[in-house]
């Protein structure tokens, strides 16, 4: 409908949308602002908005206290690693479900999703014992294994929905053209599914990055990601809002920035087949 929208209407829309958007964003904004204040300014009454003396002191303190970069690096390795491995396992499965569907394909998919409903606390002790047995406690490998497994159903489902949108004809054409299974998947299917895969990768990195139960419980120091880093700031001695804010900002900034830069891809794919 390309009918004119009056400028007034547009202005009203803009006003409402920006207000709502800023309200939703406000907690993050406030956290970031607070992280640049001194502790006293952070809890000043009435709250100080922008006219305070910006300081990096909190960041320095936080960095002194815990090795941010190691946690950061662990987060990167664990989230990217588990996502890529998950992808490698899920692509074949999604191919099979999307292009050679059987009577039970849907049931299989639903079963996979239902494994995600296992409450993690219910199985923590067994997993802990197993990890201890196999020397996986506090290792990146151990966390990658767990996160791969928990996110696998989501990856399979997402890929499945993208693959289903790819016309079977094209894969059949490849087959007629003499492509084997490997060529069919690697030369034809995957390049066509790039947007969907990008979105899958992004979403899973986010989920893995923010996963706080297993990462906290299965690590101590060496493999601890940012979720463990932030755990040392919950309820510290006294309420250090500014330091808490600095630590929070450091924990969420990487993924927030990544999310913003890739939001187009993320949004485009984030529909789980809900949108045809």
């Amino acid at each position: 409908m390309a009918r004119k929208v009056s400028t007034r209407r547009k202005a009203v829309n803009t006003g409402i949308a920006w207000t709502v958007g800023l309200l939703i964003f406000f907690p993050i904004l406030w956290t970031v602002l607070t992280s640049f204040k001194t502790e006293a300014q952070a809890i000043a009454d009435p709250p100080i908005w922008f006219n305070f003396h910006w300081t990096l002191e909190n960041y320095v303190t936080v960095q002194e206290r815990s090795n941010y970069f190691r946690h950061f690096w662990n987060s990167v390795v664990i989230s990217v690693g588990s996502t890529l491995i998950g992808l490698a396992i899920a692509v074949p499965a999604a191919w099979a479900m999307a292009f050679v569907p059987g009577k039970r394909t849907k049931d299989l998919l639903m079963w996979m999703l239902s494994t995600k409903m296992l409450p993690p606390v219910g199985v923590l002790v067994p997993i802990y014992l197993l990890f201890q047995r196999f020397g996986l406690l506090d290792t990146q490998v151990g966390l990658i294994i767990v996160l791969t497994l928990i996110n696998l159903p989501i990856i399979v489902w997402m890929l499945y929905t993208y693959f289903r949108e790819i016309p079977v004809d094209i894969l059949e054409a490849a087959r007629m053209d003499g492509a084997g299974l490997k060529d069919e998947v690697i030369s034809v299917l995957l390049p066509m599914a790039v947007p969907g895969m990008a979105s899958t990768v992004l979403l899973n990195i986010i989920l893995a990055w923010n996963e706080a139960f297993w990462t906290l419980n299965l690590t101590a120091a060496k493999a601890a990601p940012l979720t463990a880093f932030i755990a040392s700031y919950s309820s510290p001695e006294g309420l250090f809002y500014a330091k808490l804010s600095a630590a929070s900002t450091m924990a969420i900034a990487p993924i927030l920035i990544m999310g913003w830069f890739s939001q187009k891809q993320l949004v485009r794919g984030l529909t789980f087949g809900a949108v045809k």
Partner: protein
Amino acid sequence: MGRITLDKVTKSFGEVQVIPPLDLTIDDGEFVVFVGPSGCGKSTLLRLIAGLEDITSGQIRIDREDATHVPPAKRGLAMVFQSYALYPHMSVRKNIAFPLKMAKMDAAERDKRVDYAASVLNLTDYLDRRPGQLSGGQRQRVAIGRAIVREPAAFLFDEPLSNLDAALRVNMRLEISELHNTLKTTMVYVTHDQVEAMTMADKIVVLHAGRIEQVGSPLELYHTPRNTFVAGFIGSPKMNLIEGPEAAKHAAHTIGIRPEHLDTSAEAGTWEGRVGVSEHLGSDTFFHVHDTGLAETLTVRASGEVALRHGDRIFLTPQMDKLHRFDAEGLRIA
């Protein structure tokens, strides 16, 4: 080089048998068209030949060799899909070269063949575009290009023109016919449009509910349809099929007369009726005649213009030598 034989081939999806036992031979170099209404099994049959579906029983031979269990890639056939099925992420050149690459042909030879195919199909200027940047007709040509570079034993086409608009369809129809004249390779072509079938085929296979109703040249089908189904399906506008007492007069259960074989007159004739909707094409006029005392509305085709208006009275006389007679099973009475 391109002889395809189907021997008691059947296909069932689960419980449903969509192709009952079927025998068919496609000779080398022939242009064979499968035609039939939607859902009659044309695509299924083509896909069985391609190897994209397993046959349930029977045998498929290509050039006398049993191909029943040969995977699609090894049958030496090329297929053009209704949706074109181009690889959207590859340039036209890469699309066309893909089968050669899969065959591990070396790059120089590959380029030569692609360039040749592109020149045949007038695609040389578009080799570096992506399929998304092409018009429908151009995409269609790329799909054909991808098929011809392989120099297959036979081409399989599944409704390749149905996504094009009317004018383009006419053009591409000609191009494919000319391609067949040039290459002389076996072509198996699926369509539901009888005009396409008539204009392109050496041999038409009329399918109905998975069964072959008739096999023959276009004019054989036009002149001597084996049964009422073929009679009604081939020819445009459709043959008028008349049952009841009027048919009995000709010792038949059903008689058929094509719209172009009905003579009109303002004064006298076999049937008298009233003109309904008429369609003026300039070159021809189709008009529909009601209230002739027959149960059926009759369609008449007249050359050029006819000055008839809605509601006018008219007399129709069938050309007796062009009358078709069918028995109660619908089979032609010789």
